[in-house]
């Protein structure tokens, strides 16, 4: 070490200024990187909406949201997307009906009923369900589950029922893990208070813990809905891809078509004619999807940040 040079423990004014400048530049740089995801969100919104607007300008909103004839390849094309919206809603509804009861029961079980050791085994199972790629679920639905349904008597194995069950199972891990976190977040004092009053475990959970965790559980359900709406591969492979409203509407054995599957399926053909109505209508659909998911996001944000009990 060089002892000849005079060193002071305190920075000189100049040095301190440099230090401060350096740290604030670094901080600014980090801030820029952190705000990158915000930039991306805006870019996504801008690019999807920009390419979707020409469709609405030319065709208006009425046909898209209320028409029932979906023939985008015809000349002139017909763009009635109501059956596709209905298909999306049906499939999501089915998935939620299957996933929510099982998911919440499983979350309660994982957080309060099972012993620590069994929980250590059960949690990786939830994680594995979440990790299986969606295309593998789609493959299962198309190659294994659809023939099975057909054997049971369905005319076509690729239908609302098939997709709903598989989507429900895909939404399960999301619902279970978020709901379990919400249940864990409810303090021990509430549980112990209830037990002290002589309540059984079932009574404690149903009357005290679940109401206290209600906001987190509803956020979990909304996240599950988002997962089901946004899923592409399973619905593309196993929903039958028929742009029709089931007749009657509760007939779960009929094929439907969803927004995501339409985008995935038609883009390959529409890509060659970039700029045509066929191209823009898919962006209009993507914009609707974005709007739905953004709405769900806002609702879940609002629910979780609301004042708790």
């Amino acid at each position, binding site marked *: 070490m060089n002892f000849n040079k005079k060193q002071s423990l305190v920075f000189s004014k100049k040095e301190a200024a440099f230090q401060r400048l350096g*740290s604030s530049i*670094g*901080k600014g740089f*980090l801030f820029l990187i*952190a*705000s990158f*995801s*915000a930039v*991306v*969100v805006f870019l*996504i919104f801008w*690019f*999807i909406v920009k390419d979707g607007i020409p469709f609405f300008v030319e065709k208006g909103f009425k046909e898209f949201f209320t028409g029932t004839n979906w023939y985008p390849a015809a000349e002139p094309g017909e763009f009635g997307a109501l059956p596709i919206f209905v298909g999306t809603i049906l499939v999501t509804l089915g998935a939620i009906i299957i996933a929510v*009861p*099982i998911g919440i*029961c*499983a979350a309660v*079980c*994982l957080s309060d*009923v*099972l012993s620590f050791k069994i929980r250590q085994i059960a949690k990786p*199972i*939830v*994680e*594995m*369900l979440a*990790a*299986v*790629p969606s*295309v*593998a679920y*789609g*493959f*299962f639905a*198309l*190659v*294994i589950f659809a023939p099975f349904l057909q054997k049971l008597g369905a005319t076509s194995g690729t239908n609302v029922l098939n997709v709903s069950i598989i989507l429900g*199972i895909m939404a399960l891990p999301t619902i279970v893990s978020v709901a379990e976190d919400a249940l864990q977040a409810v303090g021990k004092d509430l549980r112990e208070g209830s037990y002290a009053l002589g309540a*059984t*475990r*079932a*009574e404690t959970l*149903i009357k005290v813990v679940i109401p206290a965790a209600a906001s987190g559980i509803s956020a979990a359900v909304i996240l599950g809905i*988002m997962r089901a*709406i*946004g899923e*592409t*591969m399973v619905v*593309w*492979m196993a929903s039958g891809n028929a742009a029709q409203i089931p007749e009657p509407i509760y007939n779960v054995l009929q094929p439907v078509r969803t927004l995501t599957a339409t*985008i*995935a399926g038609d*883009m*390959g053909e529409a*890509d060659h004619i970039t700029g045509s109505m066929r191209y823009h209508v898919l962006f209009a659909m*993507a914009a609707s999807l*974005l709007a739905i*998911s953004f709405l769900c*996001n806002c609702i879940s*944000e609002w629910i979780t940040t609301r004042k708790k009990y």
Partner: protein
Amino acid sequence: MQLKTRKFINKLFSGTGIASVVIMTAFLLILLTPIAFRGLGAIFFTGTIEHRMLNCKEFGHGNREKIEKEFAKAKAAREPVYLQFDSFKKEVKNFDPEKRRELKSQLKEIKEFLKELLGPFPDEPTPVLLRNQYGQTRWKNAKEKFHHILYSEEWDYSDPDKPGVKLFIPRKKYFAKTSFESFFPYLEKNIKEMLLPEFTCYWQFLTDKSKDAHFFGGIMPEILGTIYLALGAMIFAVPLGILAAIYLSEYAKPGKVISFLRICMGALAGVPSIVFGLFGLAFFINTIHVSDSKSVLAGSLTLALLILPTVIRSAEEAIKAVPNTYREASLGLGAGKWHSIWTVVLPNALPGILTGTIISLGRAAGETAPIIFTAAVSVGLPLKIWETLSQPTPALSWNIYNLCTEHEAVDEIRHVQYGMVFVLIAIVLLFNLSAIIARARILKKLKS
């Protein structure tokens, strides 16, 4: 309420909870068992001499001399079949017209199936398509074709109220009292000599290119493409994610800007994957032209955006889990803020960051929708590393979809489809398993 009923309800409640966990476990097993079982069938199966011959000729696997000797043996066993077939073809003329027509159509069907079973007839020119140059390579499929030779398929519609019933009529019946009758017993007796089935371990399934649109060969280009895409996504997403996480957990002061950033991150996590695909097409390819058309680079960038929120969240959690005393100790020793983050906080948060990274690596490998328009093609060669900047690639996830919906012979290549799904799930679950184990170890360390 009586105590008994209350106890009963309590038990019922626990029972429902446990039942739902059991349902989830059961489903995981139902999903994974057939895929694992039949997926392994792509590698371990009973292969015929045709499989060995094909592998030897197209890929150079195996001992050529030995295989050719075997093939000669099989050929010798096949010879009488062809001889009898040809001689009877001449004999057919002697029958009365109606019988002749029936026999001829039967012979035609038999010929088609024989070709599929044993490859082209010896006196025929070599077919153009590779799939027609060889017979059945897998004993299981060969048995199916063999069944078609022995039995003709007919539908019984005698009951008008019910759907038709499939009937199998022995073809022998059509040829009763002709010289061709002995053809069938000979086939049945000698089918094993003709195809020489033996247990095969075709591990090269993982390292071979595919031949003739996945009819033969392996899935190496797909595996490589998946690895490229996932690693590429990591290269872009991990540094960005970690730096963003450092800012959010160490520097950011709670306020309107930060909560706005967090809302944006939530929105990004909620964007459907197919919309990422559309965005990748519209932005990376059509607007800033990272490549002329689909490429691994564009796909990786799109996947990176998809996994960015996950990476940020897990890195942030890992950084927050580092005890504050570490930071205070470092600051107390005179280190600057950045210095202490770099030398104290990050190394301690590294295992946690790694866990999150591995899980998102698995997610990037498994995603399909974002790469449909940005990176994936159905058939392609394995890429060199510099070609990833401009070339599209086949990938496991996309090819699974493609092979089981758009391929011209979906049923014939089931084993390839199952093999691909198995490999993809194995890759993703291995990543996750290692992450789970790593996390368990960290938890143990922190506790002790």
